[in-house]
C-alpha cells in the first residue's frame, strides 16, 4: 500500500486533442477514476501539474472553466522537453494530473463590474477559464460587460479560434476585439500590437477590472497603457508563470521574495506585484 | 589509454574496457575482436561498478 500524498499524480486519459496553432494544442483529459473527476473542483486561474511518465512534470494552467463538469482542458505550447513529449501523445494516452494549485482570479470581488480581458498568444489560456466561467449561464447576470482584446503574431497564431470567432462574440454583452501583429491575405481583421489596439478601443476604467496575460513585453506595454488610461493598480490583475516542481510550496524555486507563486499566486494584482521584488 | 588506466585505477577490471583500431574494411578482425572480448567479459561475470540500483 503506497502513500497518498499531495505529490502523487492521478492517471487521466487524453480524450481529445485540438490543434490550436502550429505549436499550441489543447488537451481534453478525464481522470480514470470517475469519483476523482466528479470531485475535482478547480477555480478559474488555478494550475495543475501534468505528468508525462518517464519525463517528469510541468505546471500548466487549467484552461477550462469549472462550470464545465466532467473534463479538464489544458492548452500547451511546445517549448521544452516535457511539453514536446506531451505534444507527441495521442488521444487515448494516459498522463498524470495533480492539483489544482494556487490561488484564483478574484471572481467574487468582480461581481457587478465590467471586465476587460487583454491576452496575447498562449496567454489567453489562463484567461479562458475565467471568461467561460463568467459567460456561463448561471454566472453571466452577476457581471457587467465583457470585453476581450486578444492578439497574436499572425492569424495562424491565434488560439481558441472557435471561441474568439464563434462562441464568445455571440455571448450576451460580450465583445471580442481580435488583432494580429502582421496581417496577410487571409486576415481581414485589425492589424497592430495589442497595447496600441487597447489604446484605440480605450475602455473606460470606471467600474472595470482589467485582467491581462501574455508575453512579458506585451504585459509591460499593456500596463503602461492601462495606467495612462487611469486604471489603478488594484484594478489590474495578471497571472504569472515561473518554474515550479512541487506546486505546494516546498521545493523552493518559484518564490518571488517571500511569496511562492504556487501557493500565493499565480494571480496577482498589479498593486501586489509592486510590493514584490522584480524577480519574475 | 589514459581512460583505461583511470578506470582501472578506480577498480574496474582491465578486460572490461578495451580499445581497438579497426578499419571499415576489416570485417573479420571486427568480428574476431568482439568475440574475443565477449568471451573475456563472460568469464568475468557481472560487473559490480556503477550498477544502477534503481529497480
Amino acid at each position, binding site marked *: *500500500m*503506497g*502513500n*497518498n*500524498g*499531495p*505529490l*502523487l*499524480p*492521478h*492517471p487521466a*486519459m487524453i480524450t481529445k486533442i485540438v490543434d490550436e496553432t502550429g505549436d499550441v494544442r489543447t488537451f481534453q483529459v478525464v481522470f*480514470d477514476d470517475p469519483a476523482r473527476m466528479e470531485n475535482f473542483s478547480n477555480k478559474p486561474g488555478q494550475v495543475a501539474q501534468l505528468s508525462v*511518465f*518517464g*519525463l*517528469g*512534470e*510541468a505546471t500548466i494552467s487549467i484552461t477550462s472553466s469549472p462550470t464545465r463538469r466532467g473534463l479538464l482542458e489544458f492548452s500547451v505550447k511546445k*517549448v*521544452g*522537453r*516535457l*511539453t514536446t513529449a506531451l505534444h507527441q501523445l495521442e488521444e*487515448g*494516452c*494516459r498522463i*498524470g494530473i495533480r492539483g489544482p494549485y494556487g490561488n484564483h482570479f478574484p471572481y467574487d470581488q468582480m461581481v457587478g463590474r465590467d471586465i476587460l480581458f487583454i491576452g496575447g498568444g498562449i496567454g489567453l489560456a489562463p484567461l479562458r477559464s475565467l471568461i467561460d466561467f463568467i459567460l456561463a449561464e448561471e454566472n453571466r447576470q452577476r457581471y457587467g460587460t465583457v470585453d476581450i482584446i486578444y492578439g497574436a503574431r499572425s492569424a495562424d497564431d491565434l488560439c481558441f479560434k472557435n471561441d474568439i470567432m464563434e462562441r464568445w462574440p455571440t455571448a450576451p454583452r460580450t465583445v471580442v476585439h481580435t488583432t494580429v501583429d502582421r496581417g496577410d491575405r487571409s486576415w481581414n481583421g485589425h492589424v497592430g500590437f495589442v497595447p496600441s489596439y487597447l489604446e484605440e478601443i480605450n475602455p473606460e476604467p470606471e467600474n472595470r477590472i482589467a485582467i491581462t496575460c501574455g508575453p*512579458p513585453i506585451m504585459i509591460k506595454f499593456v500596463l503602461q497603457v492601462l495606467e495612462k488610461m487611469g486604471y489603478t493598480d488594484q484594478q489590474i490583475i495578471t497571472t504569472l*508563470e*515561473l*518554474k515550479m*516542481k*512541487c506546486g*505546494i*510550496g*516546498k*521545493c*523552493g*524555486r*518559484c*518564490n*518571488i*521574495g*517571500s511569496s*511562492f507563486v504556487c*501557493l500565493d499566486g499565480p494571480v496577482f494584482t498589479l498593486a501586489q506585484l509592486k510590493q514584490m*521584488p*522584480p*524577480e*519574475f | 589509454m589514459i581512460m583505461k588506466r583511470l578506470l582501472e585505477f578506480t577498480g574496474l577490471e582491465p578486460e572490461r574496457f578495451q580499445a581497438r583500431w579497426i578499419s571499415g574494411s576489416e570485417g573479420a578482425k571486427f568480428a574476431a575482436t568482439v568475440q574475443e572480448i565477449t568471451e573475456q567479459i563472460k568469464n568475468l561475470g557481472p560487473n559490480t561498478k556503477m550498477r*544502477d540500483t*534503481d*529497480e
Partner: protein
Amino acid sequence: MPAILKKDKLQALLSGLSRAYKLVLPVRENGMTYFKPYQTGLAIDRDYINTAMSPKEFLFPQTEKMLSFKYREGAEILITGAEPQPEKLAVFGARSCDLAGIAALDPVFGGRFPDPQYSTRRDRVLLVGLGCRRASSTCFCRAFNIDPLSCNGADIAVVELEDCFSVEARTDKGHAQLANFSQLLGEDNSGTVETSLSGAREAIDTSFDGIPDPAGIKDFLDRQFELPYWENIASRCLGCGICTYICPTCHCFDIFDVTRGKPDGNRYRCWDSCMFPDFTGMAGGHNPRPTPKERVRNRFMHKLKYHLDRYEIGGCVGCGRCVEKCPVNLDIRQVINDINKLQGGEN
C-alpha cells in the same frame, strides 16, 4: 528535573536505544564526524562540536523515491507511492542548532499540503539532543537566541558534565523511552547536577566569539532589495552547492523520472540548490534569477528574511557549517555585519 547517567553507563543506554530503534550517533571518520548507524564496538565521538552533515537527511533524504509507474494493458497506468522505511530511527547527539533546523523544516513540510514522507519520518524519529560544552570559531547559534545547552526540540536532552551525564525527557515519547532505562539512571538528590549545569552554561557562553547581531536585518531587508552589495558577494561566490546542501534548513528539491529504456520507471526527488543556474531556468529560456547576484541574494534573503516572513521562524540557526566549508570564505556572519553597516549608512 534531570536524572543522572554515570559515564560508564552511556554504552548501556546506547545499546538499549539501538534495540528499540535504528540508532545513529556521531562517529569520526576520514577526519570528520558523521551520524553513523550504531554497531557494537563503534566508538562514539565525544569531542565533536558539530557533525559534518546536519541530521536533516534522516527526515528529508538527499535522494528519495516518490512513486513508481507501470503501464498496464490498454495504455492504463498504475501509480504506486513510495513509503519510507518502516523502521523507527533514533538520532543521538543532535545539537541545539540542528534541532532548531528541524523546527524550521517542520512548517515547510507541513502546512496546507503535509508531506507524507517527511511527516512519517518525523513522527517516528526519536531526537536525543546533546548539549554543547564549547563553541567552535564558526558557531553563532546565540545570535538567533538558540541555547546550545538546552536542546530545545529534543525528545530527550543530554548534557555531558564532569563526572556524569544529565538526562532529561522533554516529550511523551522521551519519557516513555527513558522509563525503559530507569535502572541506568539515578536521581540528583544532592543538586550537584544543577550546579554543574550552571558551570557548563558559563563555559559555553564564554566560548563564543564574534556573534553577529541580526536584530535589525530583516527590517532593513524588507525595505532594501536592490543592494550593490549583492554584486560584491556574487563576484566571489563560486556558485557551488556546498552551503545549501550542508545547511540544516535548506529544503529545496527537484523532481524527475528515471526509466531504463522502458516506459515503466520511478519518480524521485533529490536535494536541489538555489545556487545552481538551472534551478529557476524555464523551458522557454527565461530565468528570473539569471546571474549569481540574484542567486546569492536569494540564498541570504531566504536565511535572513523570507523564511521568517513565511513561517515566523528563522531560516538560519547559526550552526556555522557554511562558514566552515565555504571555499571562498563567504561568511554569513560577515554578511550580517556588512548589512548592519549599510544600515548604519542609511540612517
